[in-house]
């Protein structure tokens, strides 16, 4: 039984069709990497999964149950689906620890002491245990992004979504974030990532989804897609990013 199933998702913004009859299913422990040009619909698809966007047509199933799009339904859903944003979106007025414990104490109702312990565990997983008391503004971009990952991780979600989380980082800070992602994947987390990081996609993803003009253009194991792309669009895309993918 797949953790997540998207069926026939379509979404339009005005006259622009962002998503056109997209279907996807994700099994437990699977790592799915979504790649494609800007405007291909990748981020919109991701945002449809946890309710940040509402599809015009189609269904989203989480754990074989149709997703309830009421305010209460989405609130319940987001306890099980975590998301990490491109611009981290940490709460600037709260310490790192409080950023992480907020969801635990307020949404999950945990006592503060337990929440603090879980925050410490999550930070250890991203290698930032010593930054518990720091404020976000004191951290580098890569560190802030790792805190954002820890914040989602601490909620112990069944599925984690990542929206181009390295795109806003300086190149030298990307590595530390990728390492965290690799570790999460190795530990069996179910992940859906929109990414430009082809090395990571090739190394860690179970399934690669190539999107183009709002449709799923090609789908399959990364090794197969990179070695033998079936469509001209994927060939063009790979050639465009090949210098990056090659090293």
């Amino acid at each position, binding site marked *: 039984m797949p953790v997540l199933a998207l069926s026939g998702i379509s979404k339009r913004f005005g006259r622009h069709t962002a998503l056109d009859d997209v279907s996807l299913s994700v099994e437990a422990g699977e790592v799915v990497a979504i790649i494609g040009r800007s405007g291909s619909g990748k981020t919109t698809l991701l945002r449809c999964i*946890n309710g*940040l966007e509402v599809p015009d047509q189609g269904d989203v199933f989480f754990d074989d149950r149709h997703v309830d799009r009421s*305010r209460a339904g*989405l*609130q*319940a859903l*987001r*306890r099980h689906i*975590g*998301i990490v*944003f491109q*611009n981290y*979106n*940490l*709460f*600037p*007025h*709260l310490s790192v620890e409080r950023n992480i414990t*907020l*969801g635990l104490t*307020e*949404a*999950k109702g945990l006592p503060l002491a337990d929440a603090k312990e879980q925050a410490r565990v999550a930070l250890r997983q991203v290698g930032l245990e010593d930054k518990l008391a720091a404020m976000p*503004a004191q951290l580098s971009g890569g560190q802030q992004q790792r805190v954002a990952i820890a*914040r*989602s991780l601490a*909620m112990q979600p069944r599925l984690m979504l990542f929206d181009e989380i390295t795109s806003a980082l300086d190149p030298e800070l990307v590595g530390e974030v990728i390492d965290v992602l690799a570790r999460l994947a190795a530990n069996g987390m179910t992940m859906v990532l929109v990414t430009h990081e082809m090395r990571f996609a090739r190394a860690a993803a179970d399934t690669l989804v190539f999107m183009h003009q709002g449709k799923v253009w090609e789908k399959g194991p990364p090794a197969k897609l990179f070695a033998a792309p079936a469509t001209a669009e994927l060939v063009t895309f790979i050639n465009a990013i090949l210098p990056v993918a090659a090293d």
Partner: protein
Amino acid sequence: MTRTFGLSEFLLILAAVRWTILLSLVAFVGGGILGFAVAIARTTSSRVLRLLTAAYIQAFQGTPVLMQLFLFYYGFAVLFDVQIDAWPAVAMAFTLYSGAFLGEIWRGSIEAIPQTQWEASACLSLGYFQQLRFVILPQAMRISIPPTVGFLVQLVKGTSIAAIVGFVELTRAGQLMVNVTFQPMVIYPLVAAIYFALCWPLSRLSRSLERRIDAGLGIKRHL
């Protein structure tokens, strides 16, 4: 009978300053409570609430303060058959006035918080009031302090209009003094100086807070 302007006249004027300060504080606190409710109402999804509060704000921001005072004075007598004194009338009128302006300022502060903060907190499974309480309002409060202090200056100056309906605050005291001493060019500059002493420190505080907050939160100021 003409009095000459001396120490006792000066002290009389100074005593009236109490009323200016008291009126300003009462209106600021009362208006603050009202403004808070208005700001929250303006940012909910209820269209009715938003329209009602928008009308309230437009009514008090789009009409002269003097008219508001007159209407309150005479409206009360007419609608409730009760002749109220100057003090409760101006206190209530200025409270409503402050509520409109503060509500607008604070709504602006809430809306200045980026949508991404709403999204990030929603994705942590927080409910609407939890989002407001832990994420949005703390940040909004911080950036609302400079314009709120700026409004306090506007309020202190505005209380001078109460003089026209006969409430004896600083400006009215000045008028009364001029009527017996016939020295307007001594008294009115003095009155102005007292207002300046009250307002200028607040203005400077508001400006320095604004600079500090811009630097600290890295907020870009647009024109």
